């Protein structure tokens, strides 16, 4: 029995070695003057596989569209080479190195989560390969140096935008905030919202917290209800906000609910079970926007992948187009020239018009979506 097992093990090992060899060799031999290789580090397996998959799908869609329309630099084709990092630290570092050293990519799109981008950014910076993360919101990501850019807004912008929206558009005077205490993203958004809301003259009447695995929110909801706020800010992901909204409605909490980009998921509606109606949340784009760009993106993505693109897809789609435009404007595939073009770019995509500030963070609008009849509506576009 033991002998059989070890034979099997050796066979598996040998097989995987062959595969690895193939991957390396195949990548190196395909040198084609007319193909520009752009790397991507997006986790298509692992814990956040859906994030990585919808990001990569959007990049492929964008590149195919660009190539069909004649490519860049007068006829050269863009090719994306994705290294699946499984959203694991050790894989991420290897993925960035492989793309830069073996695949010789001219630029990198990714990574998807902030944690992964924090690992990849110093590697790209050191190799002086421009890196554009579509979706990593942690402020530290772009602080590694002048080769690291991002296409999404930072967390403080969206929290502050919702505070402004609550006061100016909804006429709110009092607010309650319920954060997921064991999630930095949620706690951070809550803090920014509270600070801005107070600064604008509003009053925070309740601040509550819960943990990811907790599901009985009745106690905190009773507290919030007795504080009687005009609006309740729920900055967390759909998996906890959904049930939280449902329980809030059951408890008879009559306030307007506000949220963040973490709400954006098809699962959100089924978890909230109708309680999401009338809620507002900040996002990177809106599928309800009537711009031609957005509607073309929606129909192309839907017909190719059979699902509505989420915000990650929209941002990755924009990031791919930004990169293409930067290469065109650079006039070459020299990484330093691409970097300079990125820094000075003015780009209009599905998430709005984007320029980069001196810290390579985007200056772009924030979309406030309203949930109405089980769909999103654009409630307000908050310009930077």
């Amino acid at each position, binding site marked *: 029995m033991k002998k059989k097992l070890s034979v099997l093990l050796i066979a598996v090992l040998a097989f995987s070695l062959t595969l690895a060899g193939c991957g390396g060799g195949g990548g190196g031999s395909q040198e084609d003057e007319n193909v520009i290789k752009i790397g991507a580090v997006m986790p298509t397996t692992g814990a956040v596989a859906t994030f990585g998959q919808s990001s990569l799908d959007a990049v492929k869609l964008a590149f195919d569209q660009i190539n069909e329309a004649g490519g860049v630099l007068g006829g050269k084709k863009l090719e994306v080479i994705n290294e699946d990092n499984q959203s694991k630290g050790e894989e991420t570092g290897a993925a960035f190195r492989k793309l830069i050293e073996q695949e010789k990519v001219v630029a990198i799109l990714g990574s998807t989560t902030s944690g992964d981008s924090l690992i990849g950014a110093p590697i790209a910076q050191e190799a002086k390969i421009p890196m554009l993360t579509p979706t990593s919101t942690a402020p530290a990501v772009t602080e590694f140096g002048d080769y690291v850019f991002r296409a999404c807004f930072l967390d403080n912008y969206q929290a502050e935008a919702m505070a402004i929206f609550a006061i100016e558009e909804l006429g709110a005077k009092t607010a309650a905030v319920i954060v997921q205490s064991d999630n930095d993203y949620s706690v951070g958004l809550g803090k920014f919202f509270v600070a801005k809301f107070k600064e604008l003259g509003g009053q925070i009447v309740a601040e509550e917290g819960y943990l990811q695995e907790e599901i009985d929110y009745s106690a905190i909801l009773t507290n919030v209800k007795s504080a009687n706020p005009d609006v309740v800010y729920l900055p967390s992901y759909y998996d906890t906000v959904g*049930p939280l909204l449902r329980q809030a409605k*059951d408890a*008879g909490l009559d306030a307007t609910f506000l949220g963040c980009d973490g709400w954006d998921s098809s699962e959100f509606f089924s978890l909230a079970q109708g309680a999401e109606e009338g809620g507002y949340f900040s996002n990177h784009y809106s599928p309800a926007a009537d711009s031609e760009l957005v509607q073309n993106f929606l129909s192309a993505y839907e017909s190719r992948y059979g699902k509505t693109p989420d915000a990650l897809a929209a941002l990755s789609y924009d990031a791919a187009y930004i990169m293409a435009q930067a290469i065109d404007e650079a006039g070459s595939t020299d990484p330093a020239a691409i970097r300079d073009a990125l820094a000075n770019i003015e780009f209009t995509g599905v998430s709005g018009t984007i320029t980069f500030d001196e810290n390579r963070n985007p200056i772009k609008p924030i979309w406030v979506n309203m949930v109405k009849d089980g769909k999103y509506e654009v409630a307000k576009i908050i310009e930077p």
Partner: protein
Amino acid sequence: MTLGQQILQQLINGISLGSVYALIALGYTMVYGIIRLINFAHGEVFMIGAFVGYFIITLFKLPFILALIFAMIFCALLGIFMERLAYKPLRDAPRIAALMTAVGLSIFFQNLMVYLKWIGASPKAFPRVIEITRFEVIENVYLTSDKILTLGVALVLMLALQYVVHKTKMGKAMRAVSQDKDAAQLMGINVDSTISFTFALGSALAAAGGILYAVSYGKIIYNMGTMPGLKAFVSAVLGGIGSIPGAVAGGMLLGITENAVSAAGMSMLRDAVAFAILILILLIKPTGIFGKNTREKV
């Protein structure tokens, strides 16, 4: 809302949560009482019960009460299966071996759920089984229909358990085995089937707890059994492990304590403060509220 109204509302919230803890704690305490095993896979039985209920309601469109009964039967069988397969061979092994097996089973069940394509790792919304209506008990204090359902079902099940344990032959056998396994066997009691029956009973109650939990809070996920399982275990210890009324009292006390901590504005420290209070109680009364002072048998 006055302070009194708030306290009453939080008490209702606490009792509702506590009744679910109590249902799970009953399984822990009965199994411990009969074979001195902390069945750490019990939280997963709770989770599986909720999933069985979910599939019966969404796929077969059966009413809540049938889903409840089916899930209880399913989990009762699962409990027997678990006992026969994993625990029975270890009955004479050192206790730590059975305990590790229980932990292993718990991890196995969680991973199995993630592995199954139609369950996976993402949360699922539990469908509404009753229309939510709110009844005003006194001014500003509400009792919702799902809480009434939870409390009602929990109460009926606890009374039924009380009847089974104290008025039936099987219950008598359970009590006998828990007092002295060997003597019970000498008296002609089939120890094996009594132990299986105890697992079935405990697992069925956990399944009911799982469904009620899902009905009240609206979400099911593969790891939903971990925290309630742990808290129910603490409830059982708090009430005096091995004691059936103790499990109910412990569950209620824990549910109410948790809500009281949140109500006092310490929602971010809810578990920490709740557990700290429990440690205090156990320091004062180590055997738990209803625990008997049993001398270690030599």
